[in-house]
């Protein structure tokens, strides 16, 4: 069953019973393994927990530490991470960093309560939206391809990411993508564990909430629309649920000029027509290449340069005229 659902962009804390605000400088000691972590600062607050940047006392290494509001919810998330790690090991996956995603699982006694937490590697990066604001929206070409690679890896292991949205995509300075918040990751064939309305295909009447690769691809299409045509998406989301449909999204894709380079890809993702994530990644690459080629071949001399040239010729003629006339 769908475990958690978030309305639009707002984070909805389903269980807020435990107050997990800990000031920097607090030392979190694990109840079972005794490892100690020094809290540096708050990194973020998710649907089912709080994430801190911590320094492991014995190694002075930086990690991210997530404390859960609910023991069962956090444990299911940990179980998914473990299952992913097991599968990656079995497949002999190359990335060393993937293997060390989950560092430790333990409990922390705080104000007479046991708070479950897990420690994972710390990923530096900008959330997708601010990355594009800083670097220019053309960088979506690069980040999008990297994101599809990440999704492909996950899908190949038999999992769906589920809660794909701009905030859950971190981007390194050169466009390499890292997915964060694994609370929505679900085994293919089961129900999606956590989602956010805007990016949920059920919300747009475009399909069910069963975890499968096409679910993530649909979400990514809405993410693209959100990033490049936000006002239009907002308008469509206001529509009454009975009239809201994926054709609203398709209309935006066909009309908005900023989306034209991605049009073919977005249409197929919204219609659920990709046969695999590999195929989706392939088409993304072809589109990006086409875009680059078009830019090269078409690039006409800018008008300001023509104007400046004309002006300089005129000036030269004037100068010559005056010189010889005298």
């Amino acid at each position, binding site marked *: *069953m*769908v*475990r*958690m*659902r*978030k*309305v639009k962009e707002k984070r*909805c804390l*389903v269980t807020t019973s435990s107050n997990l605000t800990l000031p920097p400088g607090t030392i979190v000691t694990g109840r*079972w393994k005794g490892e100690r972590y020094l809290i540096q600062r708050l990194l973020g607050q998710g649907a089912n927990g709080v994430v801190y940047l911590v320094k492991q006392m014995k190694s002075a290494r930086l990690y991210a530490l997530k404390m859960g509001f609910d*023991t*069962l919810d956090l*444990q*299911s998330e*940990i*179980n998914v991470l*473990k299952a992913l790690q097991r599968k990656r090991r079995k497949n002999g996956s190359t990335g060393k960093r993937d293997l060390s995603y989950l560092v430790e*699982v*333990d*409990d922390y006694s705080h104000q007479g309560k*046991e708070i*479950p937490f897990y420690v994972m590697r710390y990923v530096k990066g900008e959330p997708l939206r601010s990355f594009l604001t800083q670097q220019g929206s053309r960088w979506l070409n690069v980040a999008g391809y990297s994101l599809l690679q990440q999704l492909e890896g996950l899908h190949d292991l038999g999992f769906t990411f589920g809660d794909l949205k701009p905030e859950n995509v971190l981007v390194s300075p050169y466009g390499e993508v890292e997915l964060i918040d694994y609370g929505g990751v679900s085994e293919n*064939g*089961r*129900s*999606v564990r956590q989602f956010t309305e805007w990016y949920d295909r*059920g919300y747009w009447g475009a399909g*069910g*909430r*069963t*975890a499968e690769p096409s679910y993530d691809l649909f979400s990514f299409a809405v993410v693209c629309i959100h990033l490049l045509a936000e006002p239009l998406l907002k308008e469509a989301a206001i529509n009454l*649920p*009975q009239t809201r449909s994926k054709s609203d999204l398709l209309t935006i894709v066909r009309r908005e000029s900023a989306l034209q380079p991605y049009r073919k890809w977005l249409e197929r993702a919204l219609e659920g027509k990709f046969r695999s994530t590999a195929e989706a990644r392939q088409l993304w690459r072809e589109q990006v290449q086409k875009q680059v080629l078009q830019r090269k071949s078409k690039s006409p001399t800018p008008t300001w340069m023509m104007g400046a040239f004309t002006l300089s010729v005129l000036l030269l003629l004037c100068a010559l005229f005056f010189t010889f006339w005298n």
Partner: protein
Amino acid sequence: MKQIMLITDGCSNVGESPVMAAALARQEGITVNVVGIVDYGAIGELGSIEIEEIARAGGGMSRLTGTEKLAQTMQMLTRKTVVQTIQQAVNKELKHILGESSVEVLPPEQRAEVVEVIDELSENSPLQVALLIDASASMKPKLAAVEEAIRDMMLSLGARQGSSQLAVFHFPGAHSGEEAVLDLGWTSNLDSARSIFQRLTMRGATPTGPALLKVIEFFRYGKLNGHRGIHGTDEKGEGEAMLGDYVV
């Protein structure tokens, strides 16, 4: 697993105590959850106390929400009580085997295994949810949102691996003596959840208790008024057809 979800915006004012009806439901193995809608004006202190008490007596949970978060709240309560029901059973076993009384006190490795079982059961156990909608006059402007929330809930339940069924009732009926009306019999078909409340006549009274008792009956016999067997134009039917006639 059997659940009743009561959706209301005020206090009951006729007949049997709804708290007692919820306690009866619990004895029959049906968990009762309550959602109080607080859109236009407050629900009142009395209303919110009653909502809490019904849920407590019914072994479930209660929440107050506006219509914009209705779908979300309904699904969250359903999910939480499914997990809770399973967890209670698991805890009993744990106490039996390990002498520990809850999942939380287990060391992380064992906890992981237990939670895996809980997750598995939550996803796969058959589930029946009967929605009981308060259709007193003040609820009228909210019914479109309720209907949409029901559709959304079916979408989510449909994604479960285990069988999931939904039935929809509203109360009170068009004339006295009709405590609850079946709008939609057990179904997992999303398309059946269109224009459920089209033919609804609103009345002022809110007989929450008697309506709950009717739904318990429905769980027991698969139809309303099963023990009396009077309304039967078609006794074998799911009750949908025969009761449809009463909605004018």
